């Protein structure tokens, strides 16, 4: 170890942030990483149970309804792809809001935040409809009306995991919408103009994208494979 020179110019030398990001954003990143382990643990538990069970229902037999579709019309994967696109689009508007914030463009921030919030609410409504529909079919925690793909009786863990994990994700979407609404109000009150930066929007954005990211995994694990 050399103590001969004091290298304060280097970013790791102390006195500045080595990552060039403010501490709050750093914390948000590490919080998301820890949340990734929460979701990871859920999804891996789901996988473990699926691997230790002999049969499993075919998602296309289960998730095949669509709002306002006539009885008997089966449209597997259609509704969930609508949900997926809603979430992707709201993620895009969030990126645009962050970008507008970096350019200190208050009007654009407000516009895109409103779109993001609408997207989030739309997603939650879709999920509420789907839950309600499945509940009417007799599915709930501890109750599974669906059969395995090979026609044998299925354990309740199919619905248990579905409701727990999509519920936990829905809870994240819900809290994301709340955070976004708070950000919108703060923008309207000129809080960020006064601070001189829109870093809070960036942090809310990170959280919102993470919610989208989790949906990518949930979508694949429950609806596709």
């Amino acid at each position, binding site marked *: 170890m050399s103590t001969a020179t004091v290298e304060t110019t280097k970013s790791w030398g102390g006195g500045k942030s080595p990552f060039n990001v403010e501490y709050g954003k750093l914390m948000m990143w590490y919080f998301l990483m820890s949340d990734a382990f929460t979701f990871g643990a859920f999804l891996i538990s789901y996988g473990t149970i699926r691997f230790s069970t*002999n049969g499993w229902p075919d998602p296309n037999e289960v998730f095949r309804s669509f709002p306002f579709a006539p009885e008997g019309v089966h449209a597997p994967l259609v509704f969930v792809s609508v949900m997926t696109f809603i979430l992707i689009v709201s993620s895009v508007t969030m990126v645009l809001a*962050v970008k507008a914030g*970096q350019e200190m463009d208050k009007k654009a921030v407000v516009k895109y935040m409103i779109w993001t919030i609408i997207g989030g609410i739309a997603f939650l409504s879709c999920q509420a409809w789907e839950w309600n529909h499945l509940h009417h079919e*007799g599915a709930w925690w501890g109750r599974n009306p669906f059969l395995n793909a090979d026609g044998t009786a299925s354990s309740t863990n199919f619905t248990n995991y579905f409701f727990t994990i999509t519920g936990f994700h829905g809870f994240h979407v819900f809290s994301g919408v709340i955070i976004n609404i708070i950000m919108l109000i703060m923008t309207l009150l000129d809080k960020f103009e006064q601070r001189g930066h829109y870093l809070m929007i960036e942090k809310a954005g990170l959280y919102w994208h993470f919610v989208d990211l989790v949906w990518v995994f949930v979508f694949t694990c429950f609806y*596709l494979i």
Partner: protein
Amino acid sequence: MSHTAQHEESHGAGEVKKVTIILSVLTIIELILGFWMMDIHNVGMRLAIKGSIVILMMAKAFYIVAYFMHLKHELKNLIMTIVVPLGLFIWFIIAFLYDGNSFRNLRNTYDPYFKERATIKVEKKEEGHGEAAHEAVADTTAHASDTAAVENKH
């Protein structure tokens, strides 16, 4: 103007548009694979399709984290502190799934009841009613051992 913001401008709106299109295309490919898989019953083939869907999923995750969450434009050290711990997932997933699979094999070998249950076909009644399925189980349990014996021969 801040340093980060200058960073942004070089990766402007074009990048957002590009990533949006990529994400949409990947999702559409996933859906096509999903629809295609409905008519395929070959186990190996289904596994291959599922594998490719997982790869597409990882690609989507990469684009969201790298561009939407902006990780790609952060400093390399920050990227490393995020990516390296995520590497723990590799062993996390392998060990859990391997042991889950082993638990099923163990039960299939040593737990006749467990194995039996997996061979009883439930007659398909009106779809989607909880009670129906459960009654069906009750009906067939009586013939369980016969069915199991038949299945075992195959």
